[in-house]
């Protein structure tokens, strides 16, 4: 299992080398969105309207951060559970989204859309929210301020730690990690 440092926006050649289990430290701009923001983004696409950020090569982080204390760009900011975004993710992937960061397994539809579009899903460590917040250099609400913690934020991150959970080849660490454990136990 390899270790990479990648810059966003993600390019096809970045994604082609990634395999499940690889550790990745992401740097650059990533965007935050949870269920409520996803619904609005997908509605904009359906209506043929412009999105609040350039989705080509973008990475979306599923997070609703805690409020920032004075002197910090953001409060604790760990991943939320990704399956709630599964109904929306394929549309975003088909429109150029290249990476998603969250926690927990994805649906077959999302995995198929990742294969179809050369995209990747990163698992961040749920509950390691203060640690992850320290990799955020700046944070700015760019859309849907009315949603509070669920607003879309533009984050600049430096060495954001995550693990490749689904690669563009259709592999799923949530299945294979468990299968490997069971296999080892039986030997």
């Amino acid at each position: 299992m390899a270790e990479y440092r990648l810059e966003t926006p993600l390019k096809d050649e970045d994604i082609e080398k990634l395999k499940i289990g690889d550790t990745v430290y992401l740097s650059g701009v990533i965007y935050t969105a949870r269920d409520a923001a996803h619904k609005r983004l997908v509605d904009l696409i359906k209506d043929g309207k412009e999105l609040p950020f350039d989705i080509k090569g973008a990475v979306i982080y599923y997070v609703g951060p805690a409020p920032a204390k004075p002197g910090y760009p953001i409060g604790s900011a760990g991943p939320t559970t990704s399956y709630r975004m599964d109904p929306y993710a394929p549309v975003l992937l088909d429109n150029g989204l290249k990476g998603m960061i969250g926690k927990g397994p994805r649906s077959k539809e999302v995995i198929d859309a990742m294969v179809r579009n050369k995209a990747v899903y990163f698992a961040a460590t749920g509950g390691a929210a203060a640690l992850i917040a320290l990799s955020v250099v700046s944070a700015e609400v760019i859309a849907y301020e009315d949603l509070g913690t669920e607003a879309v934020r533009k984050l600049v991150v430096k060495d954001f730690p995550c693990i490749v959970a689904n690669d563009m080849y259709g592999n799923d660490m949530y299945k294979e990690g468990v299968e490997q454990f069971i296999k080892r136990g039986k030997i």
Partner: protein
Amino acid sequence: MRDINVSELTNAVKKLVMDANYYIPKDIRDSLEKAYKDETSQSAKSILQMILKNHDISREKKMPLCQDTGVAVFFIDIGQDVHFVGGDFEDAINEGVRQGYIEGYLRKSLVNDPVIHRVNTKDNTPAIIYPRIVPGEKVKIVAAPKGGGAENMSEVKMMKAADGIEGVMDFVVERVKKSGGNPCPPVIVGVGIGGDFEMSALLAKKALFRNIGERNSDPEYAEIEKELLNRINALGIGPMGLGGKTTALEVFIEYMPCHIASMPVAVNLNCHATRHKEIIL
């Protein structure tokens, strides 16, 4: 009879919600350190290492362990010789939540209406309060902020007596298996058996806040807890669901008598950031 001004409740609650969100209980910390030593897979080890480092950062910087600082749940034992003065009991608790979540930089995670409007209440109220009248003239408050990820993986099932203990165990193991990486494993598994529909769920929730290693006082249920923990950890789900030895840190069962026709069973899951803090007034 002892008079307690409700402002004491407000102040206690404010401090409890902040402390519970910044400081991981020692038993959970120790258990996660042990899991880190026991794990052999690279991803499991690196995830547990991050979780342990996160505890240190939270404590030092007073930043919440998890951005999901939860719905504020309180178990409050009220001595029957206590007389609250100076205001409304529930208002005082909610005021403490409001102050604690705002001044403590905790996330406000509640919406006013579950289905139609879903507008954030902006101060994390209302709290969920379970008061109980007990002998004496003291008040014990346990704050147990509960995150959404693990709560969403919980379930109540009205089982039949014929399902037996095997049926109960299969249901619990299956519930954890279906949850996979979603509830932020390693989890704590709270199991409530008996009572009625809603009491089984409340028993399961209460079970979550026992200390790691503290077995049910009934030796038969204690054995079932141990067996369930072994079965769950044989699933291989592991830290954050990416494979490993530690899927659950503990399984706790609480039970009570129930109707001759019924056997309600509830499973309430909690993440590795199981937070609880108590105070006695």
